[in-house]
């Protein structure tokens, strides 16, 4: 009984039965493709790269404001080199250049895992340069007196940065960081260049095999908007709530 009612609730298939041509036009091109699976890979690429680039970008920013000239030099050089190289080349370099190194340990066992990890590595390395610059501009909004007061009560450089300067800097740049995160989400499509099975890779395959290219494009575009739009709105709201009042 219950099952039958459930089946009736799932009525749409019978609709297609009465209007088979509608089903063909609107949905047929999705059949046999794991669109959700591909977007799930995109989400995983985004989340892992976001965490990685936030950590690495923060470390780079710390280096760029550190009193040690060698660290400052490294941070500056890294940012200026990495953000001026196209992401595709960085991802390809990660794949071609580093695959040998990683191949020895994990590559042979699972080629797909290796590609995914290399893509994350490339995305982290690239995005961190932008995270670093966003945070550095945030550090510049923190009045000098904050760090002086911190030093005056006996906090050392690392404590001053970690407890006083960075928390205020982060709050000032949540908006710009949201932009970096949105760019990162879209940049994950570059992982297609080394064959990671994320959304763009699947889209390419589908466009090659199916006739409805425009509809396919629209579905994937919508997918990305669904991912990035809430991200931007949420972080915008968080940024306003956490803004430091002076």
């Amino acid at each position, binding site marked *: 009984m219950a099952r039958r009612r459930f089946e009736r609730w799932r009525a749409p298939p019978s609709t297609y039965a009465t209007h088979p041509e509608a089903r063909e036009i609107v949905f047929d091109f999705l059949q046999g493709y794991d669109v959700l699976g591909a977007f799930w890979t995109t989400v995983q690429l985004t989340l892992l790269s976001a965490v990685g680039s936030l950590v690495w970008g923060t470390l780079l920013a710390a280096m760029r404001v550190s009193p040690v000239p060698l660290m400052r030099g490294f941070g500056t050089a890294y940012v200026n080199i990495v953000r001026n190289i196209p992401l595709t080349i960085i991802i390809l370099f990660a794949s071609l250049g580093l695959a040998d190194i990683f191949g020895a340990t994990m590559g042979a066992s699972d080629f797909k895992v290796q590609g995914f990890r290399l893509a994350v590595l490339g995305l982290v390395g690239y995005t961190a340069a932008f995270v670093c610059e966003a945070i550095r501009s945030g550090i510049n909004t923190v*009045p000098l*007196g*904050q760090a*002086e*007061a*911190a*030093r*005056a*009560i*006996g*906090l*050392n450089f690392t*404590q001053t940065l970690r*407890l*006083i300067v960075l*928390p*205020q800097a982060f*709050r000032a740049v949540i908006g710009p960081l949201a932009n970096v995160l949105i760019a990162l989400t879209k940049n994950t499509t570059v992982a297609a260049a080394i064959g990671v099975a994320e959304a763009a890779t699947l889209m390419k395959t589908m466009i090659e095999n199916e006739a409805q290219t425009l509809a396919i494009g629209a579905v994937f575009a919508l997918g990305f908007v669904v991912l990035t739009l809430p991200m931007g709105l949420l972080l915008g709201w968080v940024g306003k709530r956490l803004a*430091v*009042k*002076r």
Partner: protein
Amino acid sequence: MTEVSVAKEDVAATDELVVLKSVNKHFGALHVLQDIDLTIARGEVVVVIGPSGSGKSTLCRTINRLETVDSGTITIDGKPLPHEGRELARLRADVGMVFQSFNLFAHKTVLENVMLGQVKVRKADKKQAEENARALLDRVGVGTQADKYPAQLSGGQQQRVAIARALAMGPKVMLFDEPTSALDPEMINEVLEVMQQLAREGMTMIVVTHEMGFARSAANRVVFMADGRIVEQAAPDQFFSAPRSDRAKDFLSKILHH
């Protein structure tokens, strides 16, 4: 051997808490501190006065090494100021500093501002740090504001919190760099009263201020600076009624008539 020398230092340190010997400091071509010799005894309250740009702030900042010196020595309680590192951080904690612009940590509550140094530098237990912080906030009269953020407080309240934050470290000496000059007139007294109370309790204080009322009632000595030099030192009454140097006479006539 070492024990003896340490003991000697302690004896020497009992009355001389802050000692500056031939301290020189440049900012590029500008000679901001010129051969500064200054000794401050334990429990003494010294007011530093002088025209703008004479190096008063720089003097304060070198005493807890927010600025480095080019030559000369500064000792706090017999110990020379170390260069960077852990040792310096510990010594800084012994020197409380109150800034003209308060500089309370903007993202932390008043209570957290006063607890932070105790927990992170003195490694105090959190509960104890909070108790101590609340007691200090009560003492400076802002106990009811503990859970607010600095921006929600008036300037006078913020400066009193800043004093509590410095006191929380248990400093041996307190430096005040024009603590009332950023305040609206009606808030100046509430801050000066806290400082006066502190002076009565025997705190060693170096205070850059042009508040002559405070200097007369709380200071043991007035140090007059001009162009990076200490031009004149005297007891407050003597300095204000009968300054010896022309620079001091000139300066006093200006601040008295405007």
